[in-house]
């Protein structure tokens, strides 16, 4: 076999310069060869990003220090290289693209100039040659109207376009190694699919070695040649894509794969004749941008959305970013006021009553937000956060705290957690707390706005299970907003597919997600990464179908 482009051997990265500090990376060895994509997979805190930053020499100085092992790039040791040498190697031999295309580009510099900087730093080309090369590269990453985009600021471009700019910037000098750190995590599925294809094609054309970091098994199935699974700074196992997905040898890998929600919808629950608890009727929200002089602009965020939710059922709203799914959720909870249309909560119209009159109805509908790290007040104990709602509705402090303890146990946390603060909990635990907080008011409807999207798959599976349990015990109705079709397939009875503020398709989940009628729904399903794999059963979907026939 040829010599590897990247050879990481027994790498240890510790906190602080002193020996004996906690090890963030503990003895990692991986190799990436020319033209090959190695996927580094792991949940948050597994050390995959630290591995990539070590390779680039971009670790925060003084706080994280490689203490032993070696990282060789085409035979050259990186760990002992001077800062000057590292700068020379970056962009020419190794380049990196990052997770957040929204923030990875300098907002105040034209994107063309940002790519140009690479050429100016590493080549002696004159301005015209440089520009020609940049435009050529921009075409290679399939950007439209390259001249116009060249002179645009990042905020004028979409997320996908920005990520293409990042890729153009990374590959313009044809580096031997490309490190891609969750490059599609922040993108919509359809854009994600395009970017993954682009990386694949460019890699084939240029023979680049790719170290691809992701937490998403679906993405792994799409792009990897080989897979390295990481957990808590250690390498769990490595192998070819097929062997890892079919025959994982380690318990952890098996669990990780089993936790990936299947795209095949769960068995449909029988239709019920339970009462309707929530109805939205032709709900619309129009944002008007008022101008000082001249005409304002109108943005229709939600356009005549109609939906019904019965007691004990789960209705999913799925769509990409900007589809209006969160706007609908917020209108229904009356966090924002709908422009027109109606919302009936337990038979009572609430879309146009005043804030004061709304107060008694608020407790019937509660919401859980996406980011468990920011949706709890960090200065208030968990118990007080949960008890605040009931206290507002006249429950005594002692009773509310007692209820808070019960609720914490209901969501699988110890009752004595009431006196602790949010930072003492992990993301998954915090989301459990947020659910307990929402349940404290005994709502009829629970709105979960991307409530599991920020969580690792194993934690995600647990939280989904928890929601399912709670629904069975309390008969609560759940409005579940998600961009993730896999999650929707596992928890929803009915789904509503939204695009550009409109409902494209709605119906039973099993129906919509297996036999979509609309082109957009089909496109969404086709873009879902790893749709060919049935991860939990360690086989491709096609084999599963064959086996069940």
């Amino acid at each position, binding site marked *: 076999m040829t010599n590897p482009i990247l050879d990481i051997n027994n790498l240890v990265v510790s906190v602080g310069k002193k020996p004996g500090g906690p090890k963030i990376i503990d003895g990692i060895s991986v190799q990436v060869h020319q033209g090959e994509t190695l996927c580094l997979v792991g949940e948050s805190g597994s050390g995959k990003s630290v591995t990539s930053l070590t390779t680039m020499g971009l670790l925060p100085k003084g706080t994280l220090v490689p203490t032993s092992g070696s990282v060789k790039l085409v035979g050259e040791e990186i760990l002992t290289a001077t800062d000057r040498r590292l700068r020379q190697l*970056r962009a020419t031999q190794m380049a990196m693209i990052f997770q957040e295309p929204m*923030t990875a580009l300098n907002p105040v510099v034209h994107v063309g100039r940002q790519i140009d900087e690479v050429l100016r730093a590493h080549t002696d080309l004159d301005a015209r040659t440089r520009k020609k090369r940049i435009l050529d590269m921009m075409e290679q990453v399939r950007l439209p109207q390259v001249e116009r985009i060249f002179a645009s600021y990042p905020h004028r471009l979409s997320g996908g376009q920005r990520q293409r700019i990042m890729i153009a910037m990374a590959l313009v000098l044809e580096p031997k190694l490309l490190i891609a750190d969750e490059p599609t995590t922040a993108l919509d599925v359809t854009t994600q699919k395009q970017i993954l294809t682009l990386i694949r094609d460019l890699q084939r054309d240029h023979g680049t070695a790719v170290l691809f970091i992701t937490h998403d098994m679906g993405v792994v199935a799409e792009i990897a040649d080989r897979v390295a699974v990481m957990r808590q700074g250690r390498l769990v196992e490595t192998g070819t894509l097929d062997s890892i997905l079919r025959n994982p040898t380690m318990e952890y890998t098996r669990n990780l794969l089993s936790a990936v929600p299947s795209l095949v919808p769960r068995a449909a629950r029988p239709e019920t004749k339970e009462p309707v608890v929530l109805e939205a009727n032709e709900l619309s929200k129009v944002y008007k941008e008022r101008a000082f002089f001249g005409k304002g602009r109108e943005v229709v965020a939600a356009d005549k959305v109609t939906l019904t939710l019965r007691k004990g059922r789960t209705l999913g709203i799925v769509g990409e970013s900007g589809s209006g799914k969160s706007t609908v959720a917020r209108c229904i909870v009356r966090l924002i006021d709908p422009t027109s249309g109606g919302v009936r909560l337990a038979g009572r119209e609430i879309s146009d009553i005043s804030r004061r009159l709304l107060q008694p109805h608020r407790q019937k509908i509660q919401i859980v937000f996406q980011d468990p790290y920011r949706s709890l007040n960090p200065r208030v104990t968990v118990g007080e956060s949960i008890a605040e709602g009931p206290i507002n509705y006249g429950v005594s402090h002692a009773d509310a705290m007692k209820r808070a303890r019960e609720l914490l146990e209901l969501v699988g946390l110890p009752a004595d957690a009431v006196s602790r603060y949010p930072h003492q909990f992990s993301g998954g635990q915090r989301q459990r707390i947020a659910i307990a907080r929402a349940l404290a008011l005994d709502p009829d409807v629970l709105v979960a706005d991307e409530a599991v999207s920020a969580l690792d798959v194993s934690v995600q599976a647990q939280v989904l299970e928890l929601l399912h349990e709670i629904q069975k015990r309390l008969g609560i109705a759940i409005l579940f907003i998600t961009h993730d079709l896999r999650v929707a397939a596992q928890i929803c009875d009915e789904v509503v597919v939204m695009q550009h503020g409109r409902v494209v398709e709605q119906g039973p989940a099993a129906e919509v997600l297996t036999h979509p009628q609309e082109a957009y729904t089909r496109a969404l399903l086709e873009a879902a990464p790893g749709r060919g794999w049935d991860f939990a059963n360690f086989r491709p979907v096609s084999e599963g179908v064959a086996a069940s026939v």
Partner: protein
Amino acid sequence: MLGYLIRRVLAAVPVMGVVALFVFLLLRLTPGDPAAILAGDNATPERLERIRASLGLNEPLVVQFITWVGKLLHGDLGTSLISNLPVMKMIGQRVEPSISIALSTIILAVIVAVPLGVIAAWKHGTWIDRFVMGLSVLGFSVPVFVVGYVLIEVFAIDLRWVPVQGFKSISTGFGAFFERIILPTCALSFIYIALIARMTRAAMLDVLGEDYVRTARAKGINEVAVMMRHALRNAAVPVITVIGTGFALLISGVVVTESVFNIPGIGRLTVDAVLARDYPVIQAMILLTSLIYVVVNLLIDVAYTLLDPRIRY
């Protein structure tokens, strides 16, 4: 851009209108007869009547206001009660020293403080950072008159490099102007260096944690380019705000420095006018100061849009 400028200037008009109304009412709504206030303690009845007539105090309030604003727009700010000179002329004489010192102070402060702040943020947590921050605490805590007298003692009295006090207009020659302005500039800039350096450091530290700075480093460009091209420009908005408000403060509020260095600026004019209850001068100073703040704020906002393309108008 031009449209934005025009809109902003137009938006400043009501602000100045409210200030003018306030200034106008200041005299009219003070308890007692404005004429008596203006005339002072030993006024004769004839003098009072004359003042009343000249101010049009017998007219309705609205008419008085319109006449007063009309005069204002023609540059007539009234006559000083103490010196009997037109207020416009008095201020005109005092504006050059004040603006010169404010400008030179801000320029010196920016030249010294911004690089200090950038270096401190770049070398965050090292002795360089601590040294710069130490200097900044010193700059905040030593009163300006102490710095002023120490500078005079060392450079004017012991070394005899520059004159002790006074001010010469730039029209009399740059040398004479410069040697008199250098010490007050240094004394005043102390606190502004401290302030701007701190602000720059804080803003830079924020920006250095941003993803695009990591991207810039991943490109393999050198650290100076990372700092200047990517970090500093993004950190500039809060720094510009401090520089702008600092400048406005400097024009109107440097009484102590003007006293220490015996400079005939508008700070001292204001204090003298307040002590002597010279109402027309006080009114004019309030108007002028407000105007300076409005203009500076306008410039700051324009600077924002130039620095950050995301800020739209």
